[in-house]
């Protein structure tokens, strides 16, 4: 696999990607009403505060939905790409990839935890892998 393309960084998303590059999963929380939100945005849609805090997430959640992407193919990715919408424990969702899992084992409600995949430009993406099964 060639290198994954770097994400686009905007004024609103810069803290998210800076954290990811440092191996941390963070999300925006409204400083006014403490609403967690992702993707980040310049104003809280609930209370209209423009101040926000960036908080570190537990990095655990479960698969809300997924898709095994077979075609078309882009040279930067391994196929099938395992795309997933992950419901994080803090109550927000993130579209990401599942890694370290057989495509045939992916299912809705699968418990997952964050890990990081490097990209071009010395950046990184938060991606998710199955949580280890608890020992009986």
């Amino acid at each position, binding site marked *: 696999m060639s290198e*994954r*393309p*770097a*994400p*686009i960084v*905007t004024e609103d*998303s810069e803290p998210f990607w800076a954290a990811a590059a440092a191996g941390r999963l963070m999300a925006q929380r409204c400083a006014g009403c403490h609403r967690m939100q*992702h*993707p980040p945005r310049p104003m809280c*849609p609930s209370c209209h505060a423009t101040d926000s805090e960036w908080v570190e997430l537990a990095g655990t959640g479960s698969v*809300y*939905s*997924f*898709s*095994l*992407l*077979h*075609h*078309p*193919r*882009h040279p*930067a*990715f391994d196929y*099938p*790409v395992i*795309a*997933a*919408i992950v419901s994080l424990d803090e109550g*927000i*969702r*993130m*579209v*990401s*990839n599942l890694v370290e899992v057989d495509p045939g084992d992916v299912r*809705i409600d699968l418990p997952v935890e964050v890990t990081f995949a490097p*990209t071009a430009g010395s950046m990184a*993406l938060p*991606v998710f892998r199955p949580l280890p099964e608890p020992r009986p």
Partner: protein
Amino acid sequence: MIALADAAAIVGAGQTEFSKAAGRSETQLACEAIVAALDDAGLTTTDVDGLVSYTIDPVEETELVRAIGSPQIAWSSRVPYGGGGSQGVLLHAAAAVASGVARVVVVYRAVKARSGARFGAAQAATRPTSAHSGSTAMQWLLPFGVLTPASWMSLNATRYMHTYGVTNADFGRAVVQMRTYAAKNPNAHFYERPITLDDHQRSRWIAEPAIRLLDCCQETDGAVAFVVAGRDRAMDTPEPVMIAAAAGAGLFEEEIGSDHYRADLSRMEGSAALAAQLFGQFGITRDDVDVAMVYDAFSPILLMQLEALGFCGFGEAKDFVADGHLGPGGLLPCNTNGGLIGEGYIHGLNLTLEAVRQLRGRSCNQIDGARTALVTASRTGVILQRPDR
């Protein structure tokens, strides 16, 4: 009833050929479709004083007018949401002529979606924002290899399948019906090429477990245009079709790609909100609908819209389809041109064209006595009616 009801009509409809390689610019395609639509209406480019297209359409108003030669444009607008906004162009046009800000409005969409920039291409280049609504959300998809409309939508569809116990073969039964209609439509890419459910189930996965190759619409080159005028003026044209209802419903975080954050992806809530408007304030009920055109860029959203629009309960579309209700003798004959899957993909506007053909009695799969046609595209829609004359 709101003032928009029956205030405007489609007085002319035009198109180019649909192909895989048009061999000319989108602007030329738009010009050709517009002139054809004006000819159909018995009007000329001199009559045109309004323009509407999609935000994503590449044809600039200035270049278009320079080619068709309209002397004075009083008003123009563009509609967001890509194909989901495709019926919004008629809402805008109807609202413009109803308000009096324009008198003869041309709506158009021109694409070279096969020979030019393909919708389904694997492009990983991300942009923070662009003129195309929804593209801001793409910065949260493309870095993860989630590159195409099929991939964005398949995430919703997998959840829908999980919630209601739907299989890809359930989608396939709708595709077989679309292809059966397309087989009789010489304008369709899949003219004389019907398929069986086995054919569908043998086609390769695009986005497993929701979307196979034959669940996808056809990337197409071509253009479609309509001429919209006020009711009084419309009655002086040869074959008007009334815009009995027109509505749009853009919900919070609901555009393709940005909707992944909404609470329940098993339901197309934008379509439910759209239906509440279309069937709530224009004096028309679902039972009045003789034939429907429902945006089928990918087959899962056809079933999901049937539910959200209220033609069956949530989770029941698979049975509604299996019982043959989309066919010629069903409760809701649907996408009689073959749909976007069977005819081609002029970004949804060719569905409106088929609705006009049905109401003029000239569909290749004519529904006897069709008087009322519904056209919906996720979050925008119109109800067209043959006028009583």
